[in-house]
């Protein structure tokens, strides 16, 4: 009697828990699932997605408030190198790409082709102007590229310390905006990140 009562209660609870469930449009082995790309990732204390995203957001918002950029109407900016002076591999191009995307989306700044994309730009212009494949009146002319007003450059450094089971990592990302014509630094900012891990079980 007691047993059948418990079965009924368990069934009722299971029905309550699954009553609203519907089939998801997925085909899965059960071992893979999509997560939130914006989540705070603390799997290890090496440079991670949260660090990249917070640096990009912080730098982009700070740069957009720079009086030098605000003084000119949609100034032309190019991205130079961000030097990695940490002890680990960090794709600094990925950081500057994120910063650039955020700034471009604001509509307040335009970006000139940077050195890494210059060869592609030259190849395209050459293809349009040489070889006779294109209508001359519709091909883009050589010698019309616009020079950037400002250059963005920076560094990322780290200090790593270990004491017993504790590892402390401090990152500093520095970025600066340089007026190309005058060579003056018009804006600079830093983003600091501290991450500490402890291997101890207690």
């Amino acid at each position, binding site marked *: 009697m007691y047993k059948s009562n418990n079965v009924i209660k368990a069934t009722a609870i299971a029905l309550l828990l699954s009553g609203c469930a519907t089939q998801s449009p997925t085909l899965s082995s059960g071992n893979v699932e999509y997560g939130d790309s*914006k989540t705070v990732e603390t799997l290890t204390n090496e440079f991670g997605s949260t660090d990249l995203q917070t640096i990009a957001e912080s730098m*982009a918002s700070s740069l957009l*408030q720079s009086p030098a950029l605000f003084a000119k109407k949609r100034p032309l900016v190019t991205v130079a190198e961000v030097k990695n002076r940490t002890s680990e591999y960090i794709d600094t191009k990925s950081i500057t790409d994120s910063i650039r995307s955020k700034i471009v989306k604001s509509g307040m700044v335009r970006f000139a082709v940077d050195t890494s994309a210059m060869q592609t730009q030259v190849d395209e212009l050459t293809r349009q102007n040489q070889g006779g494949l294109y209508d001359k009146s519709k091909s883009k002319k050589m010698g019309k590229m616009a020079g950037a007003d400002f250059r963005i450059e920076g560094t990322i450094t780290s200090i790593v310390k270990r004491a017993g089971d504790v590892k402390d990592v401090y990152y500093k990302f520095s970025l600066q905006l340089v007026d190309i014509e005058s060579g003056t630094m018009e804006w600079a900012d830093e983003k600091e990140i501290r991450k500490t891990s402890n291997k101890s079980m207690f």
Partner: protein
Amino acid sequence: MPPFKLIPLAIALSLLTACASHKPPPRPGSVNAKVEQLSEMSYLQVTDLRAVKRNHLLTVQAEINNTDSDNQQLYYRFKWLDASGFTVGGEEAWKPVLVYAYQKQTVTAVAPSPLVTDFRMVVQSPDNTGQLP
């Protein structure tokens, strides 16, 4: 009735009543109208929010108060809205902030575009009541 027999009944009742707690919506213009808490935070409160347009961009400053004697972790991000209420600039990354015991921590954010006219601050603390704010 033996006490262990009441356990399934209590679970069933709690499941039925879990979604039943509704609070009145916050007053327009109040801090709570701009703050979205993913469950009510036990020790952290957004005590002040101010927004101003600088260089065409909405700049927001929030003050978070820790009422506890222990340090508290806060995760936050902003949602930026245009005049029609559409989100601008995509989703922001969640940002972690450590708020020391009894500290009033200030966080600032700048809108990603001049189109932004409104915002929501989304906050979550691991130490929460599990209830709707």
